[in-house]
């Protein structure tokens, strides 16, 4: 017994004598090399390209142009700014509205499901989670078909109840409504699951105590449920906002950014900055402008992440 303990202690000593284990870098190298080559270097190059005039015309001989691209995007007299600024505003509105709507619908359904008198709640939960399970790319494309103005089933159903066809993906306003509603369909199950987890973590005694004190249903919701849920779900709400901010698939796969603006072809009415950058690259070969938009997005994402970490202290236990 004694000798065994001694042996363990010796083994531990042998183990700890080498303060730095150089072989660790061998284990780390696949991750570090791929992250450096595929994330860090492209990001640095993106910042560099944003200060050049790289495009199809200057494909092999781009030159440094300073802040010209940034000036073009932010100077209201420039035709590019007249696309960029509305696209930017729509991106912020979209991310904000869609995150808030997804969250509150998810929370609402979670509160309804978290009813101890509802015995079949597990079944409901399993069904309501389906949109989360279907790959978002496929379901978004499906919605593109269902919302087709002339042939789509959504208008066919509306026709049945006497509502005239709605130009879902064709008018600027309805296209924006469609994107937000389809995104709600895709995303509420995630929020619902998160909120249900939060609700189940609230001790039942709190509600009992509140009932004894004569608290109404609404008071219990306002003073017990909401604060507890908010604390648990906040670390997920802010990243979800940052994700929606760049939710390329939700926009591009549904409307392709359209309908097109009369004034310009660079971005349609529903384009967010990420899809505008994609079009700038692939359709117009303006790598300089795409990189400039990306830099703006990098700065914004960094800002949200900073707020997120300040607000939640997330990953503090990461070391």
């Amino acid at each position: 017994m004694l000798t065994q303990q001694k042996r363990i202690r010796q083994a531990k000593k042998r183990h700890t004598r080498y303060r730095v284990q150089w072989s660790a870098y061998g284990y780390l190298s696949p991750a570090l090399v791929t992250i450096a080559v595929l994330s860090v270097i492209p990001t640095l190059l993106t910042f560099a390209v944003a200060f050049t005039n790289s495009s199809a015309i200057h494909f092999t001989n781009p030159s440094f142009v300073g802040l010209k691209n940034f000036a073009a995007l932010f100077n209201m007299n420039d035709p590019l700014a007249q696309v960029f600024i509305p696209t930017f505003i729509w991106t912020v509105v979209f991310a904000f509205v869609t995150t808030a709507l997804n969250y509150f619908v998810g929370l609402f359904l979670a509160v309804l499901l978290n009813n101890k008198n509802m015995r079949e709640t597990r079944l409901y939960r399993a069904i309501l989670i389906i949109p989360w399970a279907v790959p978002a790319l496929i379901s978004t494309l499906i919605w593109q078909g269902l919302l087709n103005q002339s042939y789509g089933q959504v208008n066919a159903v509306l026709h049945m109840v006497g509502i005239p066809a709605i130009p879902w993906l064709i008018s600027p306003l309805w296209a924006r409504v469609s994107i937000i509603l389809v995104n709600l369909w895709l995303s509420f199950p995630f929020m619902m699951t998160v909120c249900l987890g939060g609700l189940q973590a609230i001790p039942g005694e709190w509600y009992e105590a509140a009932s004894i004190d004569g608290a109404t249903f609404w008071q219990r919701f306002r003073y017990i449920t909401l604060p507890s849920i908010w604390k648990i779900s906040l670390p997920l709400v802010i990243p979800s906002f940052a994700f929606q901010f760049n939710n390329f698939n939700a926009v591009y796969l549904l409307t392709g950014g359209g309908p097109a603006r009369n004034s310009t072809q660079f971005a349609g009415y529903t384009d967010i900055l990420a899809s505008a950058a994609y079009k700038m690259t692939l359709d117009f070969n303006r790598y300089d402008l795409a990189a400039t938009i990306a830099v703006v997005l990098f700065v914004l994402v960094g800002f949200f992440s900073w707020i997120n970490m300040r607000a939640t202290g997330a990953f503090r236990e990461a070391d």
Partner: protein
Amino acid sequence: MPQFKHRLSVSEWVTLWLSRVVIWVAIILVIVPMLYVVTASFNPSQAYFSSSLIPSHPSLANYRALFAQGQFLVWLKNSSIVALSLGLGQLVITSTAAYAFSRMRFYGRKNGIMILLILQMFPNFLTISVIYYGLAQVGLLDNLWVYILVQLGGSAFNIWLLKNYFDTVPRELDEAAIMDGAGHRQIFWKIVLPLARPMLMVIFFFTLIGSFSEYILAGTIIQSASNYTLGLGLYSLISGEFAKNWGEFSAAALLSAAPLTIGFGIINKWIASGLVAGSVKG
């Protein structure tokens, strides 16, 4: 504590049934769109769309057309290659790094994951302009393997997840192995990896599922139809001649979504049942 049946008060009863009605409406809104896709897939392509959920002339014509042209199988093959390569690659990259962070001493251990997590808050698809510009310069566009390579970066989030999991594997096992003369390689292969199998499965499947929904890099890099992934193929079906292709699109969407949806269901149940969190015992 046993649950006793008690009589519901009027307000409880009203709340319960109002909740049920709202949930039923939500369920209809979730299910019916999916049912329309099933219906469309069994409706011959030329049939006009209707609000009916029962196909007017049910047939397998769409499925037959899908396989007759052979495109669908090409997309499926390409997407499978991409998904499996990324899943396996992610396992190698994540598990080695997570092991180092969990078990080894080196400069940068304390803040390493934190720094990686911050670096990766900038999604790498934002660099598509540089990726496209760079690949175009060296003539590497339209290559499936380049598409895979570009996405093969280590994921700080996965590393963090797996590192936390490795941390739950008792150190006593390592120490016993060290006494038997084992080095890090044996501890990694023989002790930590086998015990972390559930978490490795989760990372593998989430990478797999995620890769099927990737569009922006696929659209940037891949150009010719023979390299199309499922996402690009489905997009080309629906954005082309819409009315003509809706039936085929529905069939293809169902065939691709079904296995992934079922896989997600299994994995999700797994996570929910605590299999992953509590599966390790010394």
